[in-house]
Every structure is written in structure tokens, then in C-alpha cells.
């Protein structure tokens, strides 16, 4: 369920664009900010609020990797596996992360701390391989660097 406050803001969005379709992305962002994922029910609600066919919202949300449809962990690790990153070892990194976190891509650690995803290009090919955790970029990754980043995050937690 989307909160009343966000609902109000989504309805406001409707008037902002010449085509209501254009309000889908900002609406998705609003919902995502509030609860860190956008599940099916919310997608339907957004469609209702924007008076659009549900399929339009589902298509858009599924196109972008930043709108997970299931609840994600506190830290959402999104490793780029597009061309430049893959050439520089992103696939190795994903494997390493899977082993380290003992989860597969798309899963969340039992303590609800980390979710691991692979995503398409994040526009940071110059610093490949890279990943995004929540809103921050971590670049020029190596296994050691990944260890340190995750340790830091865990420490912050404590």
C-alpha cells in the first residue's frame, strides 16, 4: 500500500506532464523512496492514480533495474554486468559476492542486510568494474575492495 501522502503527490504529478505516461517514472521513484521496493500492488495503485492501463506501469517498472518488486535488504548491492565491467571481471565479482554473502543473485541475506542484484550499465565504464549500493557508486573494484566496503557497511550498522 502506498501512503496517503505519496498518493497525493502522485496525483499532483499527473498534471505536470503533457502525457500522463511521463509521470510513471517519478511516481515509481516516490514509492521506492518510501519503502525501498515497489511491489505489484503498488504498481497497480500507481496505474489507478495516474489513470493509466496497469500494463504501462508494469512495463516501465520492469524495464529499470532500480525498482525491485520484492522487499530488498538494507543495502541493495547492484553490480554492473554490462560490457566494460564484464570485460574487467564483473562476473568474477558477482561470483565472489555470492560466495561471501552465501546468497544467489536476486536474493537477500537472512539477516536482511544485503540484497545482491546484477544490473545493466550505470554509466561509469571509465571506472569499471563497479557497483552501486543504494545511492552510492563504488568504483574500480577488486575483491579486497569489496571486502572493505562490506566490512565498513557492517561496522556502520553496529
Amino acid at each position: 500500500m502506498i501512503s496517503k501522502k505519496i498518493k497525493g503527490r502522485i496525483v499532483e504529478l499527473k498534471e505536470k506532464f503533457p502525457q500522463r505516461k511521463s509521470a510513471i517514472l517519478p511516481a515509481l521513484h516516490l514509492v521506492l523512496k518510501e519503502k525501498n521496493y515497489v511491489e505489484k500492488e503498488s504498481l497497480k495503485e500507481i496505474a489507478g492514480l495516474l489513470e493509466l492501463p496497469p500494463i504501462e506501469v508494469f512495463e516501465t517498472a520492469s524495464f529499470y533495474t532500480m525498482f525491485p518488486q520484492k522487499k530488498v535488504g538494507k543495502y541493495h548491492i547492484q553490480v554492473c554486468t554490462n560490457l566494460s565491467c564484464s570485460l574487467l571481471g564483473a562476473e568474477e565479482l558477482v561470483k565472489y559476492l555470492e560466495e561471501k554473502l552465501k546468497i544467489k543473485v536476486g536474493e537477500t541475506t537472512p539477516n536482511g542486510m544485503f540484497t545482491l542484484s546484477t544490473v545493466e550499465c550505470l554509466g561509469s565504464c571509465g571506472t569499471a568494474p563497479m557497483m552501486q549500493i543504494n545511492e552510492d557508486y563504488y568504483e574500480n573494484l577488486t575483491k579486497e575492495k569489496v571486502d572493505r566496503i562490506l566490512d565498513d557497511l557492517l561496522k556502520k550498522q553496529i
Partner: protein
Amino acid sequence: MKITIDNKEVEVDPGTTILETAKKAGIEIPTFCWHEKLDVYGGCRLCLVEVDDLPKLQLACATYVCDGMRVKTNSPKVIKARKGNLEFLLINHPLDCPTCDKAGECELQDYVFKYGSDKKRFKEKKRRFIVDRSQTFDDLKIGPQIIRNQNRCIICARCIRFIKDIAGEDELGDFNKGYRSEINSLPEIPIANQYAGNVVELCPVGALTSKAFRYKIRVWLTKKIESVCPFCGDGCNLFLWVKDNRIYRVTSRRNDKIDEGFLCDRGRFGYDFVNHPDRLKTPLLKENNDFIPVSWEEAFETIAKRFEKIKKDYGPDFLAGVGSPKLANEDNYIFQKFFRTVIGTNNIDHRVNIKNPLPGSDFKDYKNFFGMSDSIEDLENSDLIFILGCDMNLEHPIIALRIRKTQRKNGTFVILANPKRTKLKNIATYELLYKYGTEVAFLNGILNQIIDEKLYRIEENKIRELKDWVKEYDLDKVSDITGVPAEKIKTVAKFISQKERVIFLLGREIILHHQTQDVVDSVNNLILLLGNGRKGSLNLLWEYNNSCGALDIGILPDRLPGYLPVNDLESKKRFENFWKEKLSEKPGKSFNKMLEAILQGSLKAMYIMGSDPVREFPDRNFGLKALKKLDFLVVQDIFLTETAKIADVVLPGASFAEKDGTFTNCERRVQKLKRGFKPLYDSKADWEIICELANYWGSDFDYPQAKDITSEIAEVVPIYSGFKCEQIDENRKRLDLSFEKEKVRFKRADYKKIPDDKEYPFVLITGNTYYHFGTLTQKGENLNSIVSEGFCEINPEDAKNLDIFDGDLIKLESLSGKIEIKAKLKGNIQKGTVFVPINFEKIRYNLLMDKDKLVDRVRIRKS
């Protein structure tokens, strides 16, 4: 502009793409996502070509030409790119051609065969979109008739673009992205719109297949027969794919003047009535209330003997013939010739579902009932399309597509005036919902408003009379009668008068109206009033595949073929000379009058061909009572219809797939259908039966083939003159009715008040449904798998007041009878109205109707 393409010089207009130019020059450029009737997409990258002075290859489909451009479609660079793209597609496309329905007509198969590489460099496992791990094939049912196999999909998005852009629906989408892209519908909203079947035909590969056809036969084993759809008046062109006396599927035979290569699902999937096991197999004779199979000889003998006797005892006018708007021109022509020459009566009609059949006896008014004055294509050259009394998607789905197209491409405005909300609403500028039966008041209201505000361009002195006639229809009064808000009538009156080219489309609800003539006159008044330079035109959309043909060919009691009056001596003579028989000059009876005559004892025998009046006549009790009283009834049909059940002799006719002939569609285009296989069992083509009967009787009906009748029609029927059977398919012209054009003048039309009825508060509207048309489609399994039963549609508020829920079994009652039916709550139905479909044998909707009532009314009881 001059463009050089593969060293060929081509002259084209600016705004042409390279692909179109190549087509013009006869050069093939392979494409997947491009489709002539869809918007340019540029997604498949197969049409890459080399353009001089440009560093990279260009998309032929999306690059516009400029003067002096030099294009190469076959350079080593292009060939390499094509090979590469096809190789990419085959990384994941499964090589399951041996079990794929598309094999043999797959564009990927063909292009790889022609342009592809013989080497494969990718060794990875193929990507799968697994639906069910226990299954070998990843088939997913995404609609009642549509099966998806995403592994085979090449994401050309033709299906999605068709559904979204052309059909205006939103059931199909493209999910995820890149490598994981998939076409899908939402599980709770399966793809089930009335045009869904088109995606199967549009799909270049085997990703979308239809449940009706898949795994039944390899396409190359079938024969492709050119035919025409036997359902609504649009007359879409079809291919029947047949083998061994069976239709395996129907696809579009693109005709840009009508269907533009799209079909509705009724036409696409409704063919399976043809091979239904219940088809009549031999002639049947009733003995002691049982039908016994007899030979044709015996059947003819009985008919001839009985008819002869009645003719001798009472006279030829004690016999009557009922033809059909669903049969071919050839069938109907022979039928009326038989009755007019062999029997010697003008008691002929085909309008069995109309209470107040028009054209009436007033000859001058005939011209208004000819049908459409514009062609379907003409709709694209209008500023405003005004739809009156027609649920276009139900009655003429392909015209509805054309209206969507012109709205989208040319910004044509659409106004809907209907007794219920229709699907075109989402593209309409205004929608007016009136109470059924009040159309004349509504139109007079608009007329009055235009006069009041001086919005007309016609001279003042010409409208004095009209002004007088309509002045009592002031906004408040009209609003009160029709239920349309006064403000809306005012706005629409103004809106219409601002447009230059207005096309009026009048549909089923007007044809079945108690005031058809008055509605048509009012629309004519409106067109005249707008006048002076503005071009308005009136179109009456006849319902059935050959309604226009049946009218043209003279299945009318007062008209010879070509609308020549039976009592006009010159016309009579013309046909007497052709047919070498004396003709009666006494106008015959319309179907309603025939029924009355039976009850009065002045009609004793009837021959009904291809119609089922028991099910269709808008007063079942009356119709049944009359028909049962006949001394002798012959019914010729393909099934044992309800009318056939009460007949004395039943003759098995042939379906549209089993005979040659012509249909005249609602815009009066004569189209040829070809025989796919010989008549099944011991049935015969309808015209053949009548000919044999006539010959048995001692006449000389010498027509070895249907085309001999077509030739005679072309020779004898004035408006069909010059039509050569062989040419019909080539010129595909509409019939020219200019000879009938007479100066139209203002005519008075007044609203006939419909009495209130507290006891029966709901107005009954009937019509077709999205998946069924007429009486035949319900026989087949294909469409029944989508929708197999009819519902009574009720406004949710009315339902709430009556404590009725969706799916409840309810009783509809009128003074004449009652039926049980399931309720469906639908917001598109106005309060105080119910809609009942006519397509289901179990729903005897005409039991509720009374032939003398202006508007049929019912009450609702919970069952």
C-alpha cells in the same frame, strides 16, 4: 526527388523512406519489425543499407530519402551486417522448426535461408523462458486463443504495436529489457480483445500461435482459397486454408480498401461451423413429427407437388419465399427469379429481423436506404465522423479500426450518439447517451439549436419550413425526452457546424428502429442545413455480409433486381424479356405482412432459404404461431435451425466455403468468394438446389456454374451492369449508384412519443457480442472457447437497487414472455436499459419482443 538505389534511378516524393523507395524499385530489403500498416519502429536492424557519404549503415525503414541520395542494398558491408544480425538472432532462437507451427511461413527461416550464414559461432546454452519445468516446450497461454513461446520471439514488437496503436487496447506489453525482454500480458488481464488473433498473423516467427490452428497441420499441405468473411457487413477478405474438405484456419487476404490486412476474431476463428458434425447431411421429410432422410428426387417431388396444388387451389400469391442477407447474390438472384417466374408471385423478402421493414412502399425514399454513400476508405478524408445508434466494435469491428486510424493519423473528430456507451469512447470528442427510441427528438434538438444560433450557411428563405417544424424542440424539452444534458446538445450543435466534411454513420439500432425513416430524414435535414460547401454524407451500415446484395438483387416484395418497381411497366417488361416469363405486377408482402397473411389464411406455403425467423423475428410468439399454421413449409439451411424444426421439408444447403459466388458488402463492393471444397455430405449450393427444383418443375434454369449466374446478374441488374465475374477481384470497385441521386429536400420528421411503462421499466436493446456474430458462430468451438454464453448487461446502479450481483441468474419478463439469463453488471449500459445478445440459441431474446411495440420493455426479477 531522384534517388539511385542499387544503380537504379527512382523518382519519389519527399518524405519517403529508403525502404519504400526500394519497394517501388522492386528491390527487396529484409525486415522484421517493419510492417506497412504499423508505425516505424526501427528495432530489428535487419534493413540496414549503405548510403554514400554516410559513415555508418542506415536503417532503410526509418531514414528518409533526400535528393541525389545513392543507396546500396547489396554491398559487401550490408551483406555482412545482415548476416551478423541474423546470427545474433539465432544465438537464442531455438531451432525447433520441426515442431513449430510457423515452419514453412516463418520470416526468420526464410531470411536465414536467403541471407544468413552457414556458420555458427556461439556455443552458449540457449536462453529459455521456462513456464513449466515438466514441459519440453515453454508455451504460455496468454489469452483464450493466443499461445506464446517466448524462446522464439525476436522482439520485433509488431504484436504490441498492433494491440496498442491500431486496436487501441492495452493487454500486451514488453517486460524487462535487453536479453531478458519478453512479450506478455498481465496474468489477471489475458489478451482477449476482439482483434487479438491478428497478433498471430503479424508475428514473423512462431512466438505467437493460435490455439485453434497449432499442431493441426503443416501449412504447406493446405490449399489457400480466396474468400470473403460470411459474418458482418464489412466484407473483409479472407484466405481459407483447406485440406480434404476441412478448413484449418482463416487468415487475412489484405484489401487496403476494406480491412488493411486485419481481421476481427469472429472472422478469424469463427469458421469452424463449416465442419461442424451437426451439419444437415441429406434432405429431410417430416412424417408423423419425425424427420426421415430422403433423396433429393423425393424432396423435390414433394415440394413441387405441394406447391403446385396450393398454387392451383388458391393462386400464386398464397406462396411466399424468404431469402437471406447472409447468402450469396447468386443464391438470392436465383431464388427471386424462381418465385417471380416459376411460382409467379412477388411475395419475397429477406428482412426477418426488422419490425418495421424499410424501404417501405414509398419509392422515392428508397435512395436513403441504399447503404453507405462513402466508402470505408473515405472515412479517412473527413473532419468529423458522427456515429449514431451503432456500437461500431460489435457491429462493424473493421470499420471501427478505420475510425481509430483516421483519428490517430489525421486527427479526425469523432462524436458518438448511442443508447449505450461504446468502446470508441476513448477516442471520441463527445459522447452523448440518449434513451433508445428518442433519436428523432435528439436530432431535431440539434437542428433547432443550429437554427437558433444561426450556425447554418444555407439561405434564410430555404429553411423557413424546417424552422417551423423543429421550433418546438427546444433544449430543455429535448434534454428531458432524450436524457442528454442540454448543454451537451448545444456544444455538439456548434461543434458539428464548425466542421467542413462530416460523415454520419447510422447502425443497427437505427435499422431496427421504429422510426428508421424519420431518423434518416432528420440526418438528411441536418446535412442540408449545414449545407453550402460543407460536405455531409449519410451512411446506413447494413448488418450482414450480404445485406446490400439481398436488397440490390431484389429480395424485396415490391422491387425487381436493381430496385426497379414491380409495378413499373417498363421495368416489368425488361425482366419479362430477359426471363421469358410473364411477371406479376402486384407488389408482394413484406415478411411481417406474410406472417399476418398466414394467420388470416391468405398465405399457405413458404420457402425459407438461409434465414431462421423463429430465432430472429422480433416477436417469437407471433412468428412461431404464424409459421406453424402454414400448410407447407420448406426450409433450406446448413443446420437444423429452430425454423427448420417446424418445417415439412428440410433441404441441406452449402456453407460459404463450399460454393462460388459474390457478396456485396455494406459499402457496396462486390467481392468474389471461391469454393474451397465441394458441398459436404449430400448438400448442394443454395442456387443449385433452386435451379434443380425449378428444372424438376419443368422450367429451364440452365446455369452450369455460379459464374453463369453472376454474368446474368451483370447483364440484367442495372446497378450491377458491367461487372464481369472474372474482373471482380481485380478492380474491386464499389457499385455506382449515381443513377439514383435525386435532389434531397427537407422533410418533416417528428418524434413519436414512447409511452411510459411503470410495470416494465427497462428498455431492451439487442445486438451482437465481441466474439459472436449472427446465429452461426456459436456452433463452432473456437469462439465458444472465448465466450460460450450470453449475459444480460445491466447498469450497476440498477442492479444494486434490484439486489442483483454479477453472474446472478435473473428473469427478464415482458408482456410477451420471459427468459432466464445471467446478469453482467456493466457501466457502459445506461440506467433503465438492458442489453441482451442475439447470438446464443439458448437465449430466446425475441420471446420478450412484441412486433407492435415501438420499443421493447422488460422488467427484471431475481431468479
